[in-house]
């Protein structure tokens, strides 16, 4: 069974980790989780992104959710938000595409232009 003791160890490690950085959030990944997003696989996209972020130990990335934004025909959608850069919205996402976005955009800073629907 998972215990709170395990969490204490994670906290100690995380605190060491955070000390070494100037900013704690470098990039934010936002998954649209409205009804049509959910019906078209947004949960699997969320899961894939969480997996990638955990497996690659990307401790300066925030993964979060939002409701519908009127892009229903392109759901599931994912925004990648970085300070001082235009927000990139990816559409028609799948778990596989989402993994690629994490690997190329979030990790290496290279926008995956094939999946981009808007950029502002």
């Amino acid at each position: 069974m998972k215990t709170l003791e395990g969490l204490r160890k994670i906290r100690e490690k995380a605190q060491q980790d955070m000390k070494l950085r100037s900013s704690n959030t470098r990039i934010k990944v936002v998954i649209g989780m409205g009804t049509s997003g959910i019906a078209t696989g947004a949960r699997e996209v969320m899961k894939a992104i969480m997996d990638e972020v955990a497996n690659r130990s990307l401790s300066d990335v925030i993964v979060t959710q939002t409701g519908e934004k009127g892009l229903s025909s392109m759901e599931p959608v994912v925004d990648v938000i970085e300070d001082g850069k235009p927000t990139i919205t990816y559409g028609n996402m799948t778990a596989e595409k989402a993994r690629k976005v994490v690997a190329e955009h979030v990790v290496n800073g290279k926008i995956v232009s094939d999946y981009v629907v808007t950029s502002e």
Partner: protein
Amino acid sequence: MQDISLHLLDIIENSVRAKASLINIEVIREVMRNKLEFVIEDNGTGMDEETLRSAQDPFYTSKVEREKKVGLGIPLFKQNAEMCNGHFVLESELGKGTKLVAIFQFDHVDRMPMGNLQDTFVGSIIGHADVDFEIVLKNIKLDSSVEDFTFSTRAIKAELGDIPLTYPDVMTYIDQAIEEGIKKIKMEEF
């Protein structure tokens, strides 16, 4: 929606949109009464009587800002429960919050499968780190003995301090804790 866990996710998103800071979720399997029950209760903005009525109407949505004015989340969940000889109640009070109860006949031939509860819970918890979740899974057996599992984000956040829930090891921890709980209650087989 292909399964109940996706309906749950949709309902949780409603609660978040209603600015809930706490969402209580209960999933109860009761063998003796042949039922599978879901209770989702939030402390969000709540609805007045008219909104409450129209929320269960397939041609209504609260999302005024968007073009498509049709919200299907609640009506579909209601329909799926009632189709399975079940029961659906939505209660709400302005300023207090909303409570949704959906009951399915467990062995009804048309009952949707449970689906992936783990991904629904973990995604919601991580994706809404500023909302607290209290999750209770309960299996009430034939002899009235109860197997249960409780998960609370408050305890976890207290332990973590300023470390975010999206910290990689924390996500893995939460994912594993929820997985263990679901397996303990054997809900992955529902």
